[in-house]
């Protein structure tokens, strides 16, 4: 087991393409750290730098207190799971699992024992004599995991290990991975573009964009207190509703609506300013189903999406949407998994509310939604940084 520390690592390709830009990150011993971000954000490059497959342009890498920046992968005591598994096609499962041990000159009998042990853990002991070509996608994935586990390395590096599985298998493997994580408690860096994986697996999650760290926090913290617009728009599905709003006195108003500000939110410096207001779809609830004394807004329903356990109510707000580089980058990150936004006219913002399945809302009808003012998010539309949070909340890097 080992702690990993990245110190100001930078990776430049050519003369001006920065794949990783001054990233500093500490991963505690036994911690499961997820790197998440849209494609091309540098997460895989960081992983390859930790693995030693890629050299840094600047910065240092430490594993277990040892500086490993210039060491070859084999001298770092790491194991890696690749996105396409990278199983050796000419070797059987057993040989695949034992290859790393063999290269480390472990006695044959010990290799056999270790391989069997690993295979049993992953329930692939019946497949040991097969070659990768004779395995299904899920089985290959397990073998790839097993190859990393067999050596009991100090650090696991996983590069989107679940992305080649079909949706159902992915959910199953995700749960299994969580169990393995809790059992092995090996320091792990896990790269994914899937925010559900990031949220469910990570002890902490590091959000990246354009090679820069946006926020490092626990999944709950990330969800409840995004440090900037990008994190806000990227984390959460359906994604956060972002709209231009105006602060005046003790209220925030957007379109025809006006909501009171709670005392905990300090926006005194922004009175009269236009800010970006964020409301999570899950923080809007059908006021007819869940009666409360929270303030409400009324809206005409455009579309209803029934998911069985919940209902997404889509409506339009007469206010300008927040469109910055951050929100655009976050939207492209979803890779078609998210709902295609309604084509909003000028000055109109599509909103989504995730409400109880018992809602009576119907397309074309009126719905009354309650909003919890304590769960509103505010951002400076120019800098994209979160505002109005108490200072101890701010976990964004400088």
């Amino acid at each position, binding site marked *: 087991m080992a702690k990993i520390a990245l110190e100001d690592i930078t990776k430049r390709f050519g003369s001006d393409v920065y794949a990783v830009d001054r990233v500093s990150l500490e991963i505690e011993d036994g911690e499961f750290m997820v790197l998440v971000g849209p494609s091309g954000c540098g997460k895989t490059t960081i992983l*390859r730098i930790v*693995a*030693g*497959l890629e050299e840094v342009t600047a910065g240092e890498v430490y594993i277990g207190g040892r500086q490993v920046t210039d060491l*070859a*992968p*084999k001298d770092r005591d*790491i*194991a*890696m799971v*690749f*996105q*396409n*598994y*990278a*199983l*050796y*096609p*000419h070797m059987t499962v057993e040989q695949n699992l034992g*290859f*790393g041990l063999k*290269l*480390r000159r472990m006695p044959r009998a010990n290799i056999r024992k270790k391989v069997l042990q690993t295979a049993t853990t992953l329930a692939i002991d019946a497949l040991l004599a097969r070659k*990768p*070509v004779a395995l299904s996608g899920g089985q*290959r994935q397990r073998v790839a995991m097993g*190859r990393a586990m067999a*050596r009991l390395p100090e650090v696991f*590096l996983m590069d989107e290990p679940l992305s*080649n599985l079909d949706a159902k298998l992915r959910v199953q493997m995700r749960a299994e991975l969580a169990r393995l994580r809790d059992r092995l408690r090996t320091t792990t860096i896990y790269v994914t573009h899937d925010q559900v994986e990031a949220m469910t697996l990570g002890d902490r999650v590091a959000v990246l964009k354009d090679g820069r760290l946006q926020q490092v926090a626990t999944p709950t913290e990330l969800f409840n207190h995004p440090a900037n617009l990008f994190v806000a728009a990227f984390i959460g599905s359906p994604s956060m509703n972002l709209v231009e709003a105006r602060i005046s006195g003790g209220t925030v108003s957007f379109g025809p609506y006006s909501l009171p500000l709670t005392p905990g939110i300090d926006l005194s410096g922004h009175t009269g300013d236009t800010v970006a207001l964020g409301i999570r779809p899950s923080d809007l609830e059908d006021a007819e189903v869940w009666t409360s004394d929270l303030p409400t807004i009324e809206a005409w329903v455009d579309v*209803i999406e029934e998911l069985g356990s919940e209902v997404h109510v889509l409506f339009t707000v007469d206010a300008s949407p927040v469109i910055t580089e951050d929100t655009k980058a976050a939207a492209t990150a979803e890779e078609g998994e998210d709902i295609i936004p309604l084509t909003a006219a000028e000055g109109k913002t599509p909103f989504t509310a995730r409400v109880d399945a018992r809602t009576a809302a*119907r*397309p*074309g009808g009126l719905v009354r939604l309650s909003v919890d003012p304590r769960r509103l998010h505010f951002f400076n539309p120019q800098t994209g940084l979160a505002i109005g949070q108490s200072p101890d909340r701010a976990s964004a890097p400088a």
Partner: protein
Amino acid sequence: MGSLPGRLPIATVTAPSAKPRVDVTPRRLPPHIRRRRFLLFVANHSVALTLAIVFLMPFVVVFLTALMSRQQALSTRYWPHPFVWSNFLHISNFLPILRDGWNSTVYAVLSSVGVVVSSVPVAYALSRMRWRGRQIVFILVLSTLMLPDQVTSVPLYVIFVRFHWIGTLKPLIVPNFLGDAFSIFLLRQFFMTIPEELADAARVDGAGDFRILTRVVIPLAKPALAAVALFQFLYAWNDFYYPLLYAGNNPKTVTLAVGLSQLLSSVYVHFGVAWNILMAGSVIFMAPVILIFFLAQRAFIEGVTLTGIKG
């Protein structure tokens, strides 16, 4: 599922009950489609057969002539009458076929080994290692392909004279241990198709470049290695120019290809051209090539199934 709001109720579909399957009569193709398919079948096979005959014809003629008597070989008859199998034994009266064959084998086998052994590391360095100037070196290697043999043979001859290698098989074999541009190119292209992640995985597993090459790349590149070795073997076996130039003046180092051509002239001088003997020699000359090709075909097919795997 209930009705969608504001729309018609959706009809529900229930799973079919588990009734025993009733035998179905297979559907017959309509006559005009059957006729079309039959005509297409005939057309395709006619073309294939014609092409096969065109390619097989010379070989058949050579083989049949090899079984004729000397007089018949000069006649217009196609079918040997009688079959003179002893032609194959009589060759050794004209030509030291065992010695020449041995020389050809030594040349072909050792040069194939040399090409594979020397080209594999170069191809690996040009495809899987990152270093400054790699592209330039690759182009340099390729450019040697464009040098015509005629340009290099005189300087090479001078070099080999200085080495006192003329009249031995060394000038034919040794240069192959110094790499071959075409083989390097072919292997490089093949190595590039092997996923980079496999090398990365091996690196993380604890392998250096040498282990990656021997444990991962070479086992996966077997078909390419077979192809390279086969090409070199065929080239060396059929090679006439260099064996004649470097080794032809010493009767002990004559290869089969050179020997056969000498047969033509020596037989002619003494008896006029003995086509039947010449053809028998040709059959013996061709046999190993054909045999090896069929054997190597298995390696090729194995290779195709191997490279079909990704991940």
